[in-house]
């Protein structure tokens, strides 16, 4: 069970990084984050997504009925 929670948390974190690091308004060219740091996080993310592929058999979390599992993010509107 705790493994499931950890699994979900890592997936949510992966999606969070994908949104927050890559997208959003850029008001200035002066983004101060060291590129190396981002690359390291990305490398981990990419490896993790590969490992999701290997988790087939976990079934719906990646495929069908539980697609909402990832939708329950903190601070969700209306909650």
């Amino acid at each position, binding site marked *: 069970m705790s493994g499931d929670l950890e699994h979900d948390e890592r997936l949510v974190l992966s999606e969070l*990084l994908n*949104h927050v*690091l890559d997208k959003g308004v*850029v008001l200035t060219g002066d983004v101060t984050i060291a590129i190396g740091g981002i690359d390291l*996080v990305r490398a981990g993310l990419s490896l993790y997504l590969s490992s999701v592929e290997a988790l087939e058999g976990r079934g719906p979390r990646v495929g069908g009925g539980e*697609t909402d599992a990832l*939708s329950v*993010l903190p601070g969700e*509107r209306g909650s």
Partner: protein
Amino acid sequence: MLYLYCLVSAGREPPPPSLRGVAGAPVRQVAVQTIAAWVSDLPSAIEAVTPELVRAHDGVVREAMRAETPLPARFGQSFPDESTLRRALEERREGIARGLERVRGAVEMTVRLLLDAAAPGPAERPAVGSGREYMAWLRERQRAAEGARQRAGFLQTRVAQAVGGLARGEARSGASASGNSATISHLVACGDVTRYRHLVHELSEREPELRLMLSGPWAPYSFAELPGA
């Protein structure tokens, strides 16, 4: 040093005094005419990415979303002082106002599509070999990458068709560098989120060979580009 979280309309409520952002810093609003920025004063710029900092950034953006959809900023932008930030806001004021209008009352929903693991070609470059071997390896890699791109585009279109009329905007990202996933994001009216989830759910039940992960609602990170940026 001012760290930027998001852009909002100036007429709305300012950040609650209890709100904390990156490094536990309080959040305040800097307004320029009709638009405003939510920022924190930090002793120095952030120089590394950690999950905690990214969560804190998104936490502030989500707080802003409670009242009205903001334009979320990309992680890691800071300004040496308030007048520099004000100048940047002033220069982009019209684009920001248009951007806020575009996302008003909407959120982002994202579907990640897992691609076939079998698609990527030989990953390792031959250690030693002739130029001809190298060129063959390169061609094979390009073929595999093209295959992953086409597959991603095909799957993204399936999702787009399934959610059809609910999307106020659409953003696709091509196959990731590892070739194992791609995403499609939609700008969806807040009131349509449940219906959107339902349609994606239905698609995944109807076509179980599609391996999808739905996430959201997000602040509209994929729909926050300013004109001319």
